[in-house]
């Protein structure tokens, strides 16, 4: 028996959230006095955390390699992976369970229940730590420029640093309480950040909506945690010596076979409610698009690697609970996949009717989260987690591009139809990055999205969820199509609104029927010569547009300015992310064989039996209350180091993890999930679907634009050039109708509108209806019970009634004493009823 390798970075991973947490307070208290207004503290803390996370990742890879009995070969691990894959192919599934590095300190205890705070570092945590710190760092760099000169610059950096810290706390949470802590920190920070410009009422409302919608789900988190605690505590104390809040304990308990299926089911349902709220799944997804009211860096951080991923992370983390609770291996449908499939379809259709570029991205996030949930719900743990990884890069890149466009191209507007278009020429770098990331989102072959999304679809079908596989394929088509629509409206076609400022041909161009393709370069040159003449006119347009755009108009440029490429501080993060949107997929490139499957190797826990340590050797609570079960509890059931027959025998016994009951004194921490074998024939189907989506959408867009330009020729010629700006606005509406008209006759709009209608009416309606029902009930009680019954009874009771009846008539008198009287009276009546019943 050899001990698992550990290291300083793994042992001290708890520093990773602590550093930004401390930085938050430092920024808050001394940030304003610093030369860069506190942003340097945020950046420094994220950079430090990134270094620590990278160290932890490196050591985790080494630990896994060492456990697998091969020489470690560096952080990338391609070589090691290759070597190991050979070993694995010879010795069957001889790889042992790599125990997470768990440390725990007692936080507080009360009457026997002990709550720890600590770290639970395994492949999933390490991956997310790296991801969150990396994305946060880039977003903060981007924010340096994007929110420069903002009123609450310092507070912005404080909140965004705490936000990352919250996610990091959650990611390495050792127990459920700590997970809830991180979860709620994120909730509060998202409220602060979405409402960053709270002076404008829609922003404040969006922040409230986000907060409250997520809170609705959070009730599920509390309920689920309690249910699981009371279900598991005894078992975990007996078998592992940890409390029922411990994540490790819950994982083992769920797979032990001793857990009541009913408890698991309800625990899983409650926890999934929390995920629905946090990860924007179907009934509660409405907050995500509204959350776009926040500054763009916030949206990008929120939507890529933190907030919304929290729900997915929760499911991935407590996967055994969901696995057993929803009987994932034995069924062909469950709550998770149904919700996820609805989410995918609904969000895909909604994205078509959005004009706000960020809202398109928001709905696409909703959809991609749906894919992750679908994967998790259908037993495709690894692809879903991998999709978290790839999605973070390209979605963050897309958001940052949208921010770059609004910052430099469309005068702080996010309206694609009013203020964008034709920006490809003016912002080539942003456009290039956008296109790369958008293709990655759509899932085109060598880019990141392909490897993860295709894997999800493939595995979902492979695990018997056939119907949902087809829904997911349909979702892929929609994703591709609306991505193209957003791209076209933003970067191609003719320039509109603020995007056309200083670009005189936007007026002439309308008349000259210029489309993106035949726009002659010299016209643009000419346009720039005439820019000064047209500036006044166009400036007015832009100002008009800005008023109803989503722009904050808070910092920066007071005058309209022509679109230009963004400054370097914006472009560098964008380019890095675009690069990663290309490369991230190769981290687990299934098509190229097993040696490329690093995620399978290092992130996915092995479904192997581990000898339990009853009486709590692993979790023995020493008086110093620091436990270290990483090395001690990590001993694999059999040392497979040299003896292959023994190893494979052990593997056979362990195949049942999550499928059969593990034998006494052994525990599983992860169910045996199936992996579909990659086949090009299967991938080809989804590639064809994606490409069909891309191409058809492109042609629809081009056709619409051409058509509309031809139509415009006649219109604009009739109007004087001086009024061209005005007519541009006026015709805009007409053209919108045309655009919509064609799409309506196509496929999308009726369904999309219906979806949107359901979104607005049914879902919001339920909420509003509940409110209205409450109001009506109140009125009913007031009229009938208060006014009729109570009043009548009082009046009927003689002289006392005469004195009080008058005062009682308007029960809602605002007088405290009357409320007090009613309160105590009602309590007495209630108690009397109880007494009578009990007698």
């Amino acid at each position: 028996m050899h001990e698992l390798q550990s290291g300083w970075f793994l042992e001290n991973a708890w520093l990773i959230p602590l550093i930004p947490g401390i930085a938050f307070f430092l920024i808050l208290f001394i940030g304003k006095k610093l030369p860069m207004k506190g942003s340097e503290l945020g950046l420094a803390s994220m950079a430090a955390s990134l270094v620590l996370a990278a160290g932890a990742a490196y050591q985790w890879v080494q630990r896994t390699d060492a456990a697998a009995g091969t020489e470690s070969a560096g952080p990338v691990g391609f070589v090691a992976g290759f070597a190991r894959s050979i070993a694995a192919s010879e010795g069957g599934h001889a790889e042992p369970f790599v125990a997470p590095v768990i440390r725990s300190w007692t936080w507080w205890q009360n009457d026997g229940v002990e709550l720890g705070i600590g770290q639970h570092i395994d492949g999933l945590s390490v991956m997310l730590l790296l991801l969150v710190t990396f994305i946060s760092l880039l977003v903060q760099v981007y924010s340096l420029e994007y929110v420069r000169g903002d009123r609450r610059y310092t507070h912005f950096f404080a909140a965004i640093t705490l936000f990352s810290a919250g996610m990091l706390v959650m990611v390495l949470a050792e127990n459920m309480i700590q997970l809830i802590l991180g979860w709620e920190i994120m909730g509060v920070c998202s409220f602060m950040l979405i409402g960053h410009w709270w002076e404008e009422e829609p922003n404040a409302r969006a922040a409230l909506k986000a907060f409250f919608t997520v809170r609705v789900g959070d009730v599920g988190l509390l309920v689920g945690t309690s249910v699981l605690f009371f279900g598991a505590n005894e078992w975990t104390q007996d078998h592992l010596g940890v409390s029922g809040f411990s994540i490790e304990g819950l994982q083992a308990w769920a797979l032990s076979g001793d857990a009541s299926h009913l408890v698991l089911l309800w625990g899983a349902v409650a926890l999934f409610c929390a995920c629905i709220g946090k990860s924007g799944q179907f009934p509660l997804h409405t907050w995500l698009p509204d959350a776009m009211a926040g500054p763009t860096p916030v949206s990008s951080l929120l939507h890529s690697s933190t907030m919304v991923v929290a729900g997915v992370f929760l499911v991935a983390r407590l996967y055994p609970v969901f696995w057993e609770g929803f009987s994932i291996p034995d069924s062909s449908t469950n709550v998770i996949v149904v919700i996820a499939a609805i989410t995918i379809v609904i969000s895909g259709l909604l994205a078509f009717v959005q004009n706000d570029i960020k809202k398109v991205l928001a709905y696409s996030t909703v959809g991609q989260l749906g894919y992750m949930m679908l994967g998790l719900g259908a037993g495709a743990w690894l692809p879903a987690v991998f999709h978290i990884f790839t999605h973070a890069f390209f979605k963050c890149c897309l958001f940052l591009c949208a921010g770059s466009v609004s910052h430099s191209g469309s005068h702080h507007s996010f309206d694609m139809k009013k203020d964008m278009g034709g920006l490809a020429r003016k912002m080539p770098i942003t456009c290039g990055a956008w296109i790369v990331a958008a293709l990655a989102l759509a899932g085109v072959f060598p880019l990141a999205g392909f490897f993860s999304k295709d894997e999800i679809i493939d595995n979902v079908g492979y695990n018997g969820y056939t119907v949902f596989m087809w829904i997911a394929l349909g979702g892929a088509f929609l994703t591709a199509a609306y991505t193209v629509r957003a791209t076209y409206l933003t970067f191609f076609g003719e320039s509109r609104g603020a995007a056309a400022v200083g670009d005189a041909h936007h007026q002439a161009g309308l008349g000259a029927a210029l489309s993106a393709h035949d726009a002659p370069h010299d016209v643009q040159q000419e346009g720039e010569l005439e820019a000064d003449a047209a500036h006044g006119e166009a400036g007015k347009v832009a100002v008009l547009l800005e008023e109803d755009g989503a722009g904050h108009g808070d910092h920066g440029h007071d005058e309209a300015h022509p679109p230009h490429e963004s400054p370097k501080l914006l472009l560098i993060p964008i380019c890095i992310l675009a690069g990663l949107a290309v490369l991230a997929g190769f981290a687990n490139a299934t098509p190229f064989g097993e040696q490329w499957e690093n995620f399978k190797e290092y992130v996915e826990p092995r479904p192997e039996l581990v000898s339990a340590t009853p009486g709590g050797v692993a979790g023995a609570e020493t008086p110093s209350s620091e436990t270290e079960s990483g090395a001690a509890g990590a001993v694999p059931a059999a040392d497979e180091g040299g003896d292959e027959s023994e190893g494979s025998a052990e593997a056979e016994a362990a195949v049942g993890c999550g499928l059969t009951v593990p034998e006494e004194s052994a525990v599983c921490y992860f169910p045996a999930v199936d992996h579909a074998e990659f086949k090009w024939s299967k991938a080809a189907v989804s590639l064809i679907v994606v490409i069909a989506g891309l191409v058809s959408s492109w042609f629809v867009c081009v056709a619409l634009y051409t058509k509309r330009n031809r139509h415009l020729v006649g219109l604009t010629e009739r109007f004087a050039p001086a009024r061209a700006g005005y007519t541009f606005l006026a015709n805009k509406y007409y053209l919108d109708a045309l655009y919509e008209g064609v799409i309506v006759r196509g496929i999308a709009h009726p369904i999309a509108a219906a979806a949107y209608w359901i979104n607005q009416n049914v879902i919001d309606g339920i909420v509003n209806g509940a409110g209205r029902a409450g109001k009506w009930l109140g009125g009913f009680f007031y009229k009938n019970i208060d006014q009729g019954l109570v009043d009548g009874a009082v009046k009927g009771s003689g002289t006392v009634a005469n004195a009080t009846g008058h005062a009682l008539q308007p029960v809602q008198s605002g007088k405290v004493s009357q409320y007090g009287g009613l309160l105590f009276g009602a309590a007495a009546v209630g108690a009397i009823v109880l007494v009578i019943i009990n007698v």
Partner: protein
Amino acid sequence: MIVAADNINVAQNVAFGIIAFLMVFSALCVVTTKNVVHAALWLVLVLAGVAAQYVLAAAEFVAVSQVLVYVGAVMVLFLFGIMLTRAQIGKERGLNNKSWALGIPVALMLGGLLSYVIIDEFDDTTMPDAGPTPTEAIADNVLAPYLVPFLAISFILLAAAIGSIVLARKD
């Protein structure tokens, strides 16, 4: 109320009866007197009576706390409140609100209900004869199993102190 029976400590019972009568009378005065300052003084009597009952019930530490906190601090606070709001020192009209009679049926109903339930359940239960409670036992309880409520209380007191300063200061 049985004054004397073989299983009853008569002296204790008599003392209880006298104090209880005083308390009830004072309490009635608190809620009916027309003079605010008098009401406060009657309240002192009630609170002191409660402290005396605590002593009878072998809860010395609580009794002392009661005297310190209520009779010492809270009552002074009340008197300050009365002075600062310039209530008339003498009789005051309209100390009761118009619908004061509503209180009578509600109070009677509650009192009747509680009495019924209590008599129904504890009709002839006698208290065990207990010596004084060691303060150490209370300390052990406060600082071990009820530590979290204790911390909560300290936060409440802190918040109340800050809150009342913020509320009451002139600015």
